[in-house]
């Protein structure tokens, strides 16, 4: 007990808090819940094969069950903690249980479309995932990317304009990555060639893209809306068989082409970064550029290329806002997604898996907030809207604490000038 490290203390503290919360949930949502009504969880969303249409649980029974499950999770976590193993599984069970215990209580007599809740979370996470993948590619190569927001916005703008003018969504899909890459070229040129501080640079590039799109939007897109800003958009394609799998199908396999592209990109990056020559080299220039240079890797060329690829990815993500959903462009429509994506990347400790999970977590929190407000939870709407942001702060400060970025992230490399 006495010789406990900071990280272990944090884990223990977290377990204790979770335990207390689950006890509270048990008391308030479980035993304190005298409602005789039930909560219905809908499992069917679209045209998937139906095994079970919905699950109906008595509100108090559900809450009690989940609170107990949560306590079990805490116990499990504590057991593993004592055995000096990771308590992550226990913590996850406990956290999710609290949530469900709460939902059972809050949604007394209401309907929770479980599949839809998850699918919506994914949909809200899509641009965040694209954005965080862009950040990942840059930062793993040693270039800080604060300009994700700008890359997304540029992609959204360009795809809407091109798809409007040509009436072809495909052309919009092609131009979006190029627009994102254009922002990247600026980022790469100034950061890698001229050694400008990358945090400042990224921030300024966002301002630049905001300014450019606002300006052109007002000057061209509003006055000549029918030609410049009335883009067609993609519709969902259900993948045969896969799309029919209950729960999974509608969540993952009834999406637009942009989402399918996202799966491919995520897979390619996760694989490429850790299994290929390119990935090994990319990580090496992000960790220790001198070492990479000393074995004959052209550090700055690789960085430049990766930053541009990152722009392509984020640009494509930008298309999700326009031709991926409504078609037309709206002023500053990315609404800060790039910054949330950045937070997801950091929260995910610069790993593809972590970043995606963080993005999904945010998307889920955001959508849960929406769903709860629809079924009518009597919390002022403003506070409900804060939920995803508060959740992020709690997660960042309670769970992960100090982070370790790639060692050379943000460090300008010029041969012979360092050390």
């Amino acid at each position, binding site marked *: 007990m006495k010789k406990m490290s900071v990280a272990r203390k944090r884990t223990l503290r977290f377990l204790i808090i979770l335990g207390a919360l689950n006890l509270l949930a048990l008391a308030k949502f479980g035993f304190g819940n005298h409602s005789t009504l039930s909560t219905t969880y809908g499992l069917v969303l679209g045209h998937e094969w139906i095994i079970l249409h919905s699950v109906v649980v008595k509100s108090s029974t559900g809450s009690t069950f989940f609170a107990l499950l949560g306590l079990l999770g805490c116990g499990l976590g504590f057991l593993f903690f004592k055995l000096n193993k990771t308590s992550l599984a226990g913590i996850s069970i406990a956290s999710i249980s609290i949530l469900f215990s709460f939902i059972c209580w809050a949604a007394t007599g209401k309907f929770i479309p479980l599949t839809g809740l998850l699918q919506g979370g994914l949909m809200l996470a899509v641009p965040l995932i694209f954005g965080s993948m862009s950040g990942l590619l840059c930062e793993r190569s040693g270039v800080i990317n604060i300009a994700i927001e700008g890359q997304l916005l540029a992609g959204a703008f360009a795809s809407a304009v091109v798809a409007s003018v040509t009436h072809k969504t495909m052309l919009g899909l092609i131009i979006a990555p190029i627009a994102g890459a254009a922002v990247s070229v600026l980022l790469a040129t100034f950061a890698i060639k001229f050694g400008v501080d990358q945090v400042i640079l990224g921030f300024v590039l966002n301002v630049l893209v905001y300014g450019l799109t606002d300006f052109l939007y007002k000057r061209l897109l509003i006055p000549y809306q029918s030609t410049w800003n009335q883009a067609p958009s993609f519709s969902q394609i259900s993948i045969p068989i896969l799309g029919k799998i209950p729960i999974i199908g509608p969540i993952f396999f009834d999406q637009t082409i942009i989402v399918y592209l996202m799966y491919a990109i995520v897979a390619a990056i996760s694989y490429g970064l850790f299994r290929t020559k390119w990935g*090994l080299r990319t*990580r090496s220039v992000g960790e220790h550029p001198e070492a990479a240079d000393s074995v*004959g890797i052209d550090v700055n060329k690789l960085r430049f290329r990766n930053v541009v690829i990152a722009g392509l990815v984020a640009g494509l993500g930008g298309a999700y806002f326009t031709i991926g959903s409504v078609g037309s462009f709206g002023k500053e429509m990315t609404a800060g997604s790039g910054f949330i994506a950045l937070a997801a990347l950091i929260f995910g400790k610069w790993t593809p898996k972590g970043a995606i999970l963080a993005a999904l977590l945010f998307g889920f929190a955001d959508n849960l907030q929406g769903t709860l407000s629809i079924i009518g939870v009597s919390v002022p709407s403003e506070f409900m809207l804060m939920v995803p942001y508060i959740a992020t702060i709690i997660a960042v400060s309670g769970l992960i604490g100090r982070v370790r970025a790639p060692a050379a992230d943000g460090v300008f490399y010029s041969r012979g000038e360092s050390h």
Partner: protein
Amino acid sequence: MSLELRGVTKTFGSLVANDNINLKVDDGEIHAILGENGAGKSTLMNIVYGLVQPDSGEFLVDGNPVTIHQPADALAVGIGMVHQHFMLIPVFSVLENIILGHEQSTKIGSLESSAAREKILKLASEFGFHIDPDAIVENLSVGVQQRVEILKALMYDAKILILDEPTAVLTPQETDEFIEIMKKLRASGTAIIFISHKLREVKAVADKITVIRQGKVVAIADPKSTQEELASLMVGRPVNLTEKKTIHHDNAVVVKVSELNIADEVGRPLVSNINFEIHKGEILAIAGVQGNGQTELANAMVNLHKNVHGSILLDGQEIVGLSVNKSLHSGIAYVPESRELDGLIGKFSIAENLILDTHHEQPFAKGIFMSNKAVEEEAQKKVVEFDIRTQSIDAPVSSLSGGNKQKVVLARELSRPVRLVVACQPTRGLDVGAIEFVHKRILEEREAGRAVLLFSTELDEVMTLADRIAVMYKGEILSIVDASATREQIGLLMAGVKS
């Protein structure tokens, strides 16, 4: 293969790092380059390896001119290099570090490393290394890391191997093994350029010695010359290699460390069960190969480390758990391992650096108001007292040379009332003159009745200064021996062998 350099010149601003250097290394020769810190040895080698562009000069390999603009060019003509500062990626495995830059891919684009793995194991056994290709480099001791560096250079059949201070982090025994490896390589026809400060080693292995001073080749020396001769060639004046010391016997215990344990963020032990005492007027040196817990122990002495358990009594008072500021002010002078990273604020002026620790006290501050005058007066005084060579006390500290930077740190740390001096690698990277100065100051503190805890990886320094020597290995003190112990005894302890 032979390598010849002609007229290599390199300047950094007004500093001439290499001045028209000519050098010829023959087939199967071990060519040592000797020179004090900052003489320009690494710069020259980095130029050969393509990491630094020379202002002028040409290279000939086997008599044919070659152009080297980047490391890839050097690798292509068969030049391999083990760098003074590790060129290993800490978070990569040994295998990943070795194949980096020479990767093979399968048809589907994934890394193919089985051939490399085999070759690593074969080479390692050939030279008697024990290396796990899948170990993560940051978890390896520096000695093993050094081997990885060497393997990296050997993997791709370097014909000319540059070794820039490869023995700096090795134990004496490891160094001996390493010398054997060099000899084996020589026998197989590899030309080696060997850089070292350590005259013993150079004498033991070199076929030819080139001495560089202030960027110029000042002599081609015979390996049979005496150490004193070589040293004075390096420095340009006669030097006295050993300090005098007078033995003190005073029984009062100043510091008593008992059952000290230090853990990292996730609770893994870094340092365990440390017990020692230091008396008034005594120097206890902590020797050991870098990375065996010395840094953590040193940090713990002033509460810079968080997860510390146990007791440190300073004149009977417990200091574990105090703030850093309180620890320093309870009478500890602390010279950190890295003066650039932890000792000084490069952007700050010399004057400001001299009061980092006392800026909030009289006479430098009244309340929150700082007094520029007092700060300047203090700086003027210290610059004279410690012979800090600078044009102005307002110059940023980053503009000073290494030795003068260290003097600033010393001047600051010794300006408080001191009972214990904790000095970590106080002469690392300093030249002979600066080393003399630092040693003199440390001995003066001892004369004045202070306890000194000296951390050093330089065995020579430890042997010269210490009254007693504690050797650390894997976070523990293996043994505390008398100053009369032999190099061999200490060397064995450093390698973890408890007699």
